[in-house]
């Protein structure tokens, strides 16, 4: 016979304890600690059986319950107060926590009600962009001063230094067209094809690598070059396509082991 265990899910160990106290109509100020520990352990066991993933906090609480249970068996400890001598109850701390948690849990239900009623109310919507466009700023820099420019530039320099960049502006990045021309020149000088990595080697910045790569794609698209890879992850060779009119395949890939 197979049956499904429907196990309620709790927000945490305190939530579970409150549930047990409620369902068994226990007095929160005088919790029968042995009973509730048993109930608590039963839940953990069931949760484990159905593979419910409980946080470690549930185990910590199990430990706390067992510790309280043990202390309850020992002779009562006394504490001196202003009014005289008072019995120390090992459950006090737990009760206090439960009461405090219950306050917030109940309040969360109040918030839920407020949230629900509030979802039915809508507020004025305004097209901010259009509104702001009606009032162009008379002075485009607002209250900025020349000193702010100075500060901003110093910050830029500081960030540059932080990026570990030497403060040099090297020559201008080449255009896509220039990369294409350069690439064709290089390929023409090396009839048998050039390694892809070597083609990108002269690039000095990420931007240039990207442009060079785009140039290569452009040449491929135009059928002016073709690429060849002899093995998976092997070197990629780029060659001039001498027979573009034949529509030679631009990519030639040979699987590993070939």
């Amino acid at each position, binding site marked *: 016979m197979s049956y499904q265990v429907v196990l309620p899910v709790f927000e945490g160990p305190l939530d579970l304890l409150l549930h047990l106290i409620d369902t068994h109509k226990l007095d929160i100020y005088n919790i029968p600690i042995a009973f509730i520990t048993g109930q608590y352990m039963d839940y953990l066991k069931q949760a484990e059986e159905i593979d419910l993933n409980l946080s470690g906090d549930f185990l910590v609480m199990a430990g706390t319950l067992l510790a309280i249970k043990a202390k309850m068996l020992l002779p009562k400890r006394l504490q001196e107060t202003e009014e005289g001598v008072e019995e120390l109850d090992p459950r006090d701390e737990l009760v206090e926590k439960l009461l405090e948690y219950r306050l917030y849990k109940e309040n969360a239900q109040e918030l839920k009600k407020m949230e629900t009623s509030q979802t039915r109310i809508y*507020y004025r919507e305004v097209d901010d962009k259009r509104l702001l466009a009606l009032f162009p700023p008379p002075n485009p820099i607002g209250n900025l001063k020349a000193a702010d420019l100075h500060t901003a530039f110093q910050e830029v320099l500081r960030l540059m230094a932080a990026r570990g960049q030497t403060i040099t502006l090297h020559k201008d990045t080449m255009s896509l067209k220039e990369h294409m021309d350069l690439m064709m020149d290089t390929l023409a000088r090396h009839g048998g094809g050039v390694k892809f990595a070597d083609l990108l080697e002269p690039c000095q910045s990420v931007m240039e690598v990207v442009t060079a790569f785009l140039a290569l794609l452009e040449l491929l698209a135009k059928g002016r070059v073709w690429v060849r890879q002899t093995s998976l992850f092997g070197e990629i060779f780029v060659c001039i396509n001498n027979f573009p009119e034949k529509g030679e395949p631009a990519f030639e890939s040979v699987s590993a082991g070939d």
Partner: protein
Amino acid sequence: MNLYQQETKEILEALLLCSAEPLTLSALIEITGYESGQILEALGYLQQEYVQQGRGFEICEIAGGWMFATFPKHAPYIEKLVKPRLSTLTPASLEVLSIIAYRQPITRAEMEEIRGVSCDSSVNTLLERNLIRESGRKDAPGRPILFSTTTDFLKYFGLTSLQDLPALEPGEASPSDNK
């Protein structure tokens, strides 16, 4: 009603129409140059008029200011017009939010102490939805971050101010309450 009051009302209506955020009394004073009494009186008149005239919206006091708002009964129509709301909060997030609302500013560790479990994912959700914010660091070992509620929190729950939060009192007919 004199002409001066009529003008005040018109200006307030124009300002409310152009604002998607609650307009505070101090902002209204600064913009209009009127005294607070004058403004509050005009807002009161407008609120009355709208009720008498059966307008399809009202001026509500929320999150420390005033703004135009619709009535719940028209929600089905408006929902066809505006983008759907974000999903509602989970019980866990509501618990964490309730703790922050009443105990702010409060650290993660303090929240976890009260709930008995970690609050990280709820805190992140609430931060993402701008219902809470980091409001400094506690002068304690490790200088942990403190969290507080935001103006959006007030708007989200339809509160004028934090004083409007329901009183934090033990529920009445709670079975575990019988001493």
